[in-house]
């Protein structure tokens, strides 16, 4: 963690968000206009700020910064290359889960502060969704850390030098990816801000700088989640020929494109069925994954 790391992380956050926006356009309509993304972002930022119709201006104004901080902290824990391991904490994986856990209050604050019944409904839907998915997210991160015998993301990447974790623990990946997409408010799980259904849901009342911050935070969140998926399950920066950073960029890009493509392919899930699956299938499976991780560690990695 050299003293250049914070600036590198911020630069990565802005550049990565722009790249995710371009990938989104490519997956959506095949018409990529990189300059257009910047122009629309600039136009959006100098719109006037909307006055919240709701009851709580404090929460309304605090939600976008909190979402941005949570996204940047989540991005900071992702190990990108041997030279640039982000915030290299011995508890990096748990810090990643903790950062993602702060997306829920910020979405609720946005919905509650905005005030309209649909915005509040969007906020509550997201809380219900996250309560179901919080367990798989946190447990799978620790299950993946078991073979590496450390919660440091860089160590988890290094333990996958022989075989990526997605092959060793496919169930863990099958639990982590949907939960990660749900946290990043991606398409099949976009129950909190369904455009036509909830009229924009929790973030519907934001304009100007608020809307810009939220759009930026969501793109950084997608990047962080995809980066961590690549690091934890696809052996991060390890790869035969290309330099490590290129491998990590390729894998993250592939995961982002895959998540966005799944969003276009699958209809939005119904909250009731999703919660039944989350509570009755995902949480017991998450506990099973931890037991399995222990066995695999003892059998193969010790």
């Amino acid at each position: 963690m050299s003293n250049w790391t914070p600036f590198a992380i911020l630069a990565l956050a802005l550049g990565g968000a722009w790249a995710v926006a371009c990938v989104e356009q490519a997956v959506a309509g095949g018409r990529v206009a990189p300059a257009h993304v910047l122009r629309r972002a600039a136009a959006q930022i100098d719109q006037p700020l909307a006055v919240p119709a709701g009851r709580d201006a404090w929460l309304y104004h605090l939600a976008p910064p909190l979402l941005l901080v949570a996204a940047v902290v989540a991005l900071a824990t992702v190990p990108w290359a041997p030279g640039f391991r982000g915030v290299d904490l011995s508890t990096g994986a748990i810090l990643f889960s903790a950062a993602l856990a702060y997306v829920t209050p910020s979405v609720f604050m946005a919905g509650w502060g905005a005030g309209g019944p649909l915005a509040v409904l969007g906020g509550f839907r997201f809380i219900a969704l996250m309560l179901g998915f919080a367990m798989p997210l946190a447990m799978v991160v620790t299950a993946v850390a078991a073979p590496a015998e450390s919660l440091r993301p860089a160590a988890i990447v290094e333990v996958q030098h022989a075989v990526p974790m997605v092959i060793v623990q496919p169930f863990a990946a099958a639990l982590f990816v949907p939960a990660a997409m749900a946290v990043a408010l991606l398409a099949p799980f976009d129950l909190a801000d369904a455009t036509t259904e909830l009229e924009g849901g929790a973030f519907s009342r934001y304009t100007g700088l608020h809307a810009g911050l939220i759009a930026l935070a969501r793109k950084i969140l997608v990047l962080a989640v995809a980066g961590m998926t690549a690091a934890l399950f696809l052996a991060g920066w390890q790869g035969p020929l290309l330099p490590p950073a290129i491998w990590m960029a390729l894998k993250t890009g592939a995961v982002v494109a895959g998540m966005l493509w799944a969003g276009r392919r699958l209809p939005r899930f119904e909250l009731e069925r999703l919660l039944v699956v989350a509570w009755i299938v995902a949480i017991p499976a998450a506990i099973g994954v931890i037991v399995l991780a222990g066995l695999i560690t003892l059998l193969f990695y010790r």
Partner: protein
Amino acid sequence: MSDLATALVFWPSAAIMLVTGLYVFRTRSMARAGLLLLASLGIEGLVFLSLASEFLGVLQLLMMSGEMVIMVFFMVMFMADPGGLMGMDMTHDKRRSAAVAAGVAAALGAVAVATDWPGTVVTGAAPDIEQIGFEVMGRSMLSFLFAGMTILFAMVGGILLAKHGGRLGIPAPAGEPRDEEGAP
């Protein structure tokens, strides 16, 4: 972390923790109260980080966010005026409870400052995850088993209590609420 860094992180976060903790009980809006409590206990995680127990600080940050969101959820469900617009005063005999609180603070503060605690000089680094792991799985294994069982019993008990019809499955009495006047 060096002393200066510890002081730089400790003092502001301790101050914010206390102020947000106090405002939890002075604010009208219940949603805001829940999120202030989230801020207070979350920033306590930062205080733990400043006291160099990194694992506990990050764990506190993770745990508190989940718990407080559930708190806000329940508050908005069960309180007559979650938006805090009716200006209802949801407190009673504030003066006496403030006096009791001040007394408690004075007593504990005196104990904290008066007694001379052993070895205030910090020697090695705080125990990292590995040591805590071996501790939890080694010496304190039994206690942790009980802690785990307690949580299990609490979950089962909680669900039974909250189930429709209560523990014995008796439907709620005739459905209509009995308010103060006792009129059905």
